[in-house]
């Protein structure tokens, strides 16, 4: 999936396997659809959370996307990888939900994210780092957040992410670069703090 990893035998088999699963799901096989949902649940939920921040909203968006994908299975081109096709639906669902939420209310900043505190132990340190990262992500545009998560976490290539987000490949590179600059700065500060 990543640029540096050309699709190997395992990936090719996985893609064949997915094409078959999709064909079965399209024919009404619920178990096949279940396998696809289970396989992409974590990725879909992470991408939606990157876009929306709130985990419940993200799960709702990911669920809507999964159901929408099921309805649109006839439109899926089995010669192409399933993941980017599904994640495009996830990204659209998350973006739509975000727009509706923005109209509904101004997004409040989670007080837990900005609160200071005593020096935490190691487990809490990790949790606190997660909070800081989410806070840093929240300062980035939604598209930039999704781009960096799709690239650095999910391992998709720039070209695949361009397809998922519906933007040029060069824009994806730029978005990933800018997101990384912020996140690397945060991680460097964090390392200094914990010494």
């Amino acid at each position, binding site marked *: 999936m*990543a*640029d*540096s990893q050309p699709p190997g035998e395992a990936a090719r088999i996985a893609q064949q396997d997915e094409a078959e699963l999709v064909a079965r799901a399209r024919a*009404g096989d*619920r178990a096949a*659809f*279940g396998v696809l*949902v*289970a396989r992409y*649940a*974590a990725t879909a*939920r*992470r991408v939606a*959370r*990157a876009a929306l921040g709130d*985990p419940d909203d*993200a*799960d709702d968006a*990911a*669920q809507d996307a*999964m*159901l929408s994908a*099921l*309805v649109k299975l006839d439109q899926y081109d089995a010669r192409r990888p399933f993941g980017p096709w599904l994640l495009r639906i996830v990204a659209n669902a998350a973006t739509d939900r975000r727009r509706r939420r923005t109209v509904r209310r101004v997004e409040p900043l989670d007080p837990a994210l900005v609160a200071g505190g005593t020096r935490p132990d190691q487990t809490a340190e*990790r949790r606190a*780092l*997660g*909070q800081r*990262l*989410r806070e840093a*992500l929240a300062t980035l545009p939604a598209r930039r957040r999704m781009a*960096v*998560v799709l*690239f*650095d*976490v999910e*391992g998709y290539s*720039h070209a695949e992410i361009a397809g998922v987000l519906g933007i040029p490949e060069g824009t994806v*590179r*730029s978005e*990933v*670069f800018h997101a*990384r600059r912020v*996140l*690397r700065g945060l*991680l*460097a500060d964090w390392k200094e703090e914990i010494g």
Partner: protein
Amino acid sequence: MKEFLPFDHRPDAMIGDALRRALDPGDASVFVARVLGRAERIRQGVGASWDGVLASWARVGVAAAVTVALAAGYVLGRSAAAPAPRRASVADAVLAPATSTTDVEVVLASVIEN
């Protein structure tokens, strides 16, 4: 920290791991069960056809739109059918046809008094 190229084409493992932990969605089984349950409910509610699901949503949407349009048309029609009464002016009184002599007399009388 090692130096990174601006548009590095390789995933950054450090950022990837940190983000994966930060965005960890938790147990997938609950989510999967929820999605499959919802899919099943929709399937049972409308029948085996997913096109039917969409069609039913579309029918509700069209019905709602027609209702709103009819209500808006009714309100607009009522307001257009009953224009606000206008006070007669001197010009109206002078130019008025002979049948409305009462109005003419009242207006002319008020002008003369002033």
